[in-house]
């Protein structure tokens, strides 16, 4: 690294001088940052970055600003490509297999653990950020590390919580949102009786269905595997969770089995659905729409933590967005520099604000970000990274956990039973068989 530092400094100074005329404050800062940073981008570096498609324009706008500032300060060219998040993993997988593709990929939760050996060791970046910003939340460390090394930087998680219409909840006889699973069932029954529909995705909705069904399983103290990756899904706790889910699904609006990630958003925003599990996107979209009917829905909407189940502990599943760098990149230092740069407070704070509650930080220092206080309806989302378990539950985070989720084992187990396609034992047995096959 030291050998090319001098060369870079010269080049950087020249570029900096050129940029000086039009430089904004951010660029000034970025230049100073680049000068003092421990990661010196390779000369002439070009980074191709593949990221998940933004939920919200404000977040992307901030991201583009970060990219532009970094480009100006360092002379590194960054090409950003967006893909909907179902498509990122296949692309990243192909890249990992062939050694050709984007240098930086910003996928969902476990994707980095599908091919840990193909990724650049990011331990120095993670340690630097952790030290500077109050440490990582436990789940970030769980997601970030493989065999003691950081293989990715968990930038943020996307929190999913209960979205409900306040007036409908009140009309059903509840003044505040229930904090136990038993209370939730009562509320859903009462809301259904009042003709205000409730519904949670039971289809292959990789975000929504995985999130709420894993919460349901875990909050009952049931898990797919234990900490030694032994399959323990066939348990009395699972049976309880399944029975609860069946009872809850009896209160659902028809069609939940076909829902993908956008279905409940559409239904809620049309006023047909009054309670569901989702990210902040429904509320944010309604608020941003400027349409009177939508604004009224936003006004009447609030969020609540997933209630505690028999286990008595928060056990949610939130989507993590780790950023990873492939070993085949010719410019690992540029990629590291960019990663560290975007996570610095000067960039990360406005970015988190731009995300308007869609995304939750994994570094403790960002608890103080005004995004969480500007609108009290966003408050539950502040703790998303602290309340979530990793996607593997108790087990090890790795390709097995990733495969189990990608195969929708838990989702299908619940859906099979709730739709009557399988009986209770059959549905659990099928999940157990699939899980054992993956965890052999």
């Amino acid at each position, binding site marked *: 690294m030291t050998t090319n530092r001098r060369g870079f400094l010269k080049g950087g100074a020249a570029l900096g001088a050129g940029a000086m005329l039009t430089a904004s404050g951010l660029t000034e800062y970025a230049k100073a940052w680049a000068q003092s940073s421990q990661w010196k981008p390779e000369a002439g570096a070009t980074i191709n970055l593949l990221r998940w498609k933004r939920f919200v324009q404000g977040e992307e706008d901030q991201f583009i600003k970060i990219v532009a500032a970094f480009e100006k300060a360092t002379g590194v060219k960054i090409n950003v490509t967006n893909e909907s998040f*179902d498509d990122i*993993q*296949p692309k990243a*997988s*192909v890249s*990992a*297999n062939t050694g050709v593709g984007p240098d930086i990929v910003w996928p969902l939760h476990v994707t980095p653990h*599908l*091919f840990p*050996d*193909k990724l650049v060791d990011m331990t120095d970046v993670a340690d630097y950020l952790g030290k500077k910003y109050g440490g990582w939340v436990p789940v970030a460390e769980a997601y970030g590390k493989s065999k003691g090394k950081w293989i990715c930087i968990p930038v943020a998680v996307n929190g999913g919580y209960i979205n409900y219409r306040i007036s409908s909840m009140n009309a059903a006889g509840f003044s505040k949102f229930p904090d136990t699973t038993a209370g939730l069932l009562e509320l859903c029954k009462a809301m259904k009786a009042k003709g205000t529909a409730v519904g949670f995705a*039971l*289809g*292959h909705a990789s975000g929504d269905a995985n999130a709420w069904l894993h919460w349901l399983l875990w909050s009952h103290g049931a898990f797919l595997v234990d900490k030694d990756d032994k399959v323990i899904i066939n348990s009395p706790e699972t049976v309880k969770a399944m029975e609860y889910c069946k009872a809850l699904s009896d209160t659902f*609006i*028809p*069609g*939940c*089995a*076909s*829902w*993908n990630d956008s*279905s409940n958003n*559409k*239904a809620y925003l*049309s006023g*047909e*659905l009054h309670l569901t599990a989702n990210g902040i996107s429904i509320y944010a979209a309604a608020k941003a729409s400027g349409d009177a009917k939508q604004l009224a829905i936003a006004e009447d909407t609030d969020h609540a933590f997933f209630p505690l189940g028999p286990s008595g502990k928060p056990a949610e599943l939130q989507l993590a967005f780790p950023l990873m760098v492939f070993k085949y990149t010719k410019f690992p230092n540029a990629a590291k520099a960019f990663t560290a740069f975007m996570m610095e407070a000067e960039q990360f704070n406005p970015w988190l604000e731009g995300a308007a509650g869609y995304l939750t930080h994994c570094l403790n220092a960002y608890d103080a970000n005004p995004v969480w206080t500007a609108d009290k309806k966003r408050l539950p989302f502040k703790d998303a990274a602290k309340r979530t378990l990793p996607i593997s539950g108790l087990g090890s985070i790795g*390709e097995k956990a*990733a*495969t189990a989720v*990608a*195969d929708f084992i838990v989702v*299908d187990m619940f*859906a*099979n039973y709730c*739709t009557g*396609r399988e009986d209770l034992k059959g549905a659990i047995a*099928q999940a157990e*068989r*699939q899980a054992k*096959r993956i965890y052999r």
Partner: protein
Amino acid sequence: MDDFTLFSIGSGTMTATATLSKDRIEPRYSAWERLKSNRDWLGFWFMMPAAAILLLFLAYPLTKGVWMSLTDVKIGRPGVFVGLENYEELIFFDKTFLYSTGFTIIYTAIASAAKFVLGLYLALLLNNNLPFKSLIRSIVLIPFIVPTVLSAIAFWWIFDSQFSIISWALRKWGVIDHNINFLGDPILAQATVIFCNIWRGIPFIAITLLAGLQTVSPSLYEAATLDGATKWQIFRHITYPLLTPIIAVVMTFSVLFTFTDFQLIWAMTRGGPVNATHLMATYSYQKGILGGQLGEGAAIATAMVPFLLAAIMVSWFGLQQRKWQQGSKE
């Protein structure tokens, strides 16, 4: 050896002489030189480019796929040979695989039969003298021209659980009091995707059969009409036999396309609800690419091959061996 060289090199005397003189200095030709210039091998050389393309783009991927299905390869790392384990697992334990195989067969059978009947009917209609004949024929092709994903997304909205225009219209008319759960109910979802496949597939069959119909000589129809044949008899004994070869080709393709369908299902249901509309192709994608289990994904894809071969055999031998040629008796 000299005889051989003389015989095989070039046709012109000049070349032969030149070769002869050269031969005296260097009497031995390598096997490669002989192969290069041997006329019997010429055909082989001309075949090479085509063979190379077939090997590279067909045989190699197919062999590689079969090989992968015998290993536990995962995305991002090579696997080891596990024999038939993937197949055992799929056939004996994986209910979703059995469901998806069953549904693929049902999907193909119903959709192909319906597409054939409706396509043939449409072709016969279009073969009549209609006003704006070519315009109507072009319009008929539209479902086939629209990219599948686009039409699938349109269908997804048409059959949405909450926003279906069909449910909406029926509700407005007071026929039903709640939305029809088109894509949320397993059986309805299966029927829906089959319907969409039929809609998309009819034009291909109709237009191809129409092309076939136009090659039937009108004199045959005239003769039959003079002999007092009914419309049905004309169809049964003239049109149908003459159309048989093209039906064989068209239906082979249709069955293959339907059996390997992917886009429609993926855009509309992702194989849901509760895996009821998974076809082998979508299940293979979910296992192999999304789930990262390339070996199992490859095994599912390979398991499609025997079905496809069987379909081809049935079409070719079943339909082509009939004595359809003009003038022969059945």
